[in-house]
């Protein structure tokens, strides 16, 4: 594959693959290495007493997976579930969780050097979830740092669900 050739060609500037998804009209990217699979929306069982950013749990081939309300986590307005709604199963910090998104778009290839630092102004904690931005295919991709999506305390909280 041409991309693999490029990746080998320039070790200082590796090409990374990102799964892109849509949320509130914007396009976001997550590192493909952290994505296990993408599921169509299915019934999510709410968990009493769970934090507000937790939608509930799903049964994934016998395993219980917690689903995060990504819009809530990013302080975006809530939206209805549609036919395009997906649950992206990701693995981060040795945990497997699902994140609900408006839709999943594609896989894009980005050079490390193409990724720019995003500003971080204000006092919102959620700003730290943004790893960087990149202009690709005439749109701006907002790249998410999944490892910062939850704090250690929040992971511990999820483990108790």
């Amino acid at each position: 594959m041409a991309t693999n050739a490029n990746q080998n060609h320039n070790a200082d500037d590796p090409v990374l693959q990102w799964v892109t998804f849509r949320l509130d009209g914007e396009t976001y990217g997550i590192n493909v290495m952290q994505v296990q699979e993408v599921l169509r929306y299915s019934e999510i069982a709410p968990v009493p007493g769970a934090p507000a950013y937790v939608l509930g749990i799903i049964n994934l081939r016998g395993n219980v997976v917690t689903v995060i309300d990504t819009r809530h986590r990013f302080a975006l307005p809530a939206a209805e579930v549609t036919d395009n709604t997906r649950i992206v199963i990701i693995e981060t910090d040795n945990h497997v969780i699902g994140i609900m998104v408006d839709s999943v778009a594609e896989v894009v290839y980005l050079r490390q050097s193409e990724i720019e630092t995003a500003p971080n102004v204000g006092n919102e904690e959620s700003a730290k979830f943004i790893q960087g931005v990149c202009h690709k295919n005439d749109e701006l991709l907002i790249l998410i740092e999944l490892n910062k999506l939850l704090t250690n305390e929040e992971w511990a909280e999820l483990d108790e669900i």
Partner: protein
Amino acid sequence: MTHRSDELLQDYLDDLLGSEAPPVQVAPRSPAPEEHREAGVRDANAEKQRQLQKLLNSAKLQVAQVAPQSPPEPEIKEPVPVPSELEPAVVVPEDLTQPEQAEAVAQVLDEQLQWHVNGRPHWAQDEFEVLLFKVSGLTLAVPLITLGQIQPLTDELTPLFGQADWFMGLQPTPSGKVRTVNTAKFVMPERYDPEFVKTAQYVISINGVPWGLAVDKVEQPIRLNPEDVKWRSERGQRPWLAGTVKAHMCALLDIPQMGHLLTKADKNAG
């Protein structure tokens, strides 16, 4: 504008300065007859209008380059050269993310941050040109020498979650991504009209930093004598405010200071 609204605006500008309004210091260096001065001002305004049109024309052409899906222009014009006296205002490093270039302009920016003992900023020691623009009905003035480019705001403006409420988003431009400030919210949060996000048409980038100000309408550049400005003496509360210009009923922004504040506010800034 009516006399009453002029008074209200003056009150607001005085409020901005945070002090009672002493007589505005208007001290022309060479006392010329009033009518002669007015004729000169008219001629100068016509020339400024022509220069501004050229600036806006070049902004339109740049939009065509970044938005190929927009309806094709009947004819592609060559970029309009900017008048030589305005050149410092529109020269921007091609890529502000390059550390060498950022370092090169840092020294100039540091100079422009300085205020002299005469109570004026470095860039206002002699006559200087300012660009007037409208933000939610308020006229603001910014020194031309501190400006980068004027770019139209487009649908490509991308908001980022988790940012301060005055951050509108990233506007891709041929010169890079301009971090666009909601100027109305930044400058006058107490009078903020949410309609501004719909009415804002341009982003004026600040020279040397990747930040820009969203504005409703760009007006003509004018030349100011330092004595035309009521310079702000206490700059603790609104350090981005340089002073007010009664003749044009506008607030003069200290853009270098504003750029400095914006850069300082960014926790990801290196």
